[in-house]
């Protein structure tokens, strides 16, 4: 149907997730940003959702009409930016 002609639009660039896949996840029970993330990988990429999270929130709102509090943001997980394993180790494991 016309309504879904934009299903191919890419929403999460890091993980190459389309609008259609996000709509399908919502049909399968996703109600939150985290629910969409686990079902599609949107938000699991290198930028950890910095680019796509707002779009995912908007799609959830458009599809379900729920309030922002219910949709949530994805849990902020450390590190906030990618960091090398080596730099984490510091003194006890070698050079910083």
């Amino acid at each position, binding site marked *: 149907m016309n309504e879904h002609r934009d299903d191919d639009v890419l929403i999460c660039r890091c*993980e190459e997730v389309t609008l259609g896949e996000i709509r399908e996840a919502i049909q*399968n*029970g*996703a*109600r*939150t940003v*985290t*629910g969409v993330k*686990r*079902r599609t*990988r949107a938000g*699991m990429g*290198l930028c*950890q959702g910095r680019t796509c999270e707002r779009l995912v929130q908007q799609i959830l709102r458009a599809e379900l009409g729920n309030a922002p509090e219910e949709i949530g943001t994805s*849990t902020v*997980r*450390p*590190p906030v930016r*990618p*960091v*090398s*394993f*080596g730099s*984490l*180790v*510091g003194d*006890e*494991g*070698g050079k910083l």
Partner: protein
Amino acid sequence: MSAFDAIVVGGGVIGTQAAYHLFKEGLEVALVERYDIADGTSSHCDAVVLIGDKMPGIDTEQGYASIQRFKEIVQEVPYDFEFKVRGLLYVCETEPEMEAAAGYVADQVRDGYDMQMLDTKDILAREPYLAKDLIGGFWSSADATLNPYKLCYALVNHMRAQGAKIYDRTNVTGVLLDEKRRVKGVETDRGTLLAKNVINCGGAWAPELARMAGCDLPIQPRKGLCLISEKAFPICSQKVQEFGYMMSKFEGINFTRNVSERVARTNVAMVIEPTDADNFILGGNREFKGFDISAEIESIQAIAERGIRFFPILREMNLIRAYAGVRPYMPDHLPVVSEVDNVPGYYIAAGHEGDGISLSAITGKMIAQLVTGKPTDFNIDKLKYSRLQKGGKSIEQ
């Protein structure tokens, strides 16, 4: 009010498998989960389905049977959950570890499992990016991996499509019993559901649910942390873990590792596995910290340190995410898969600690066998709830 043959409480790997196997037996099943499917420990964990981290005997027997059952489920369910038999490589740092490993492998081989000891050359041939100073290890061929939350979604999507009732975002607040303490159903924040059989698959939260039926359950949350790397070229092609992992899991194994204070304090042992999305999951540790699942920097650092010790190439690679979960820990390292004797119709399938993903298929199958009165695939007396009770009285933690 809706009536069912069985109500499964908990939408993690154990609950979805129990519901699936009951549904397959032709029962009217309701699956009740207070949040989203797989919101508990089953989305805060690694992804391996192992025999090579289990004690010889029923522990390994269940693990092996589960892997065989997973191979069938892949054919039965039309959704992918990334199941693959990849094998498991253990690596050893010291002679005492090699000796302990050789004893373990001999026991498992005697029971018929395919495991073999390896020397430095062999382990480097399998994993060229391993540190060059390791003295050997062993290989177990039957071990597999899968994506745990995709497994939950696959089973739920399949059941829903076939007409099973899935009540997500529904919190169970009570268990209904008749005057003979027989199960009648459950109370939820969205109304009453009736059934003669209720299965508690609450994972680390199972004790709360058990209390609603007047039962004590000594499960405790045992925290573990995982680090996810960026997508990268394959630095390992299967699950690799240090033999010291056995020591962090079971208290009974005695040898001392040559590790930093930080690693000892946080009880870290290196485990690494590739994922389908070309990231790596690096772990892991075991600590008792209640239900707190924050990712502490000291534990992150210790896991990174131990990872680099075994895979020096990790030093240059990026960490993009760290998360923690709580394993449902039982003091005797065996889950409860059992009806509760003095509450007919009340079943418990919980307490799988670090093996819930592995054991979910066989646990689900055996719960369906118990509920429908069929003989179980093998003798599971050791998993009975009654083992926790002495002279009819339950043991307090």
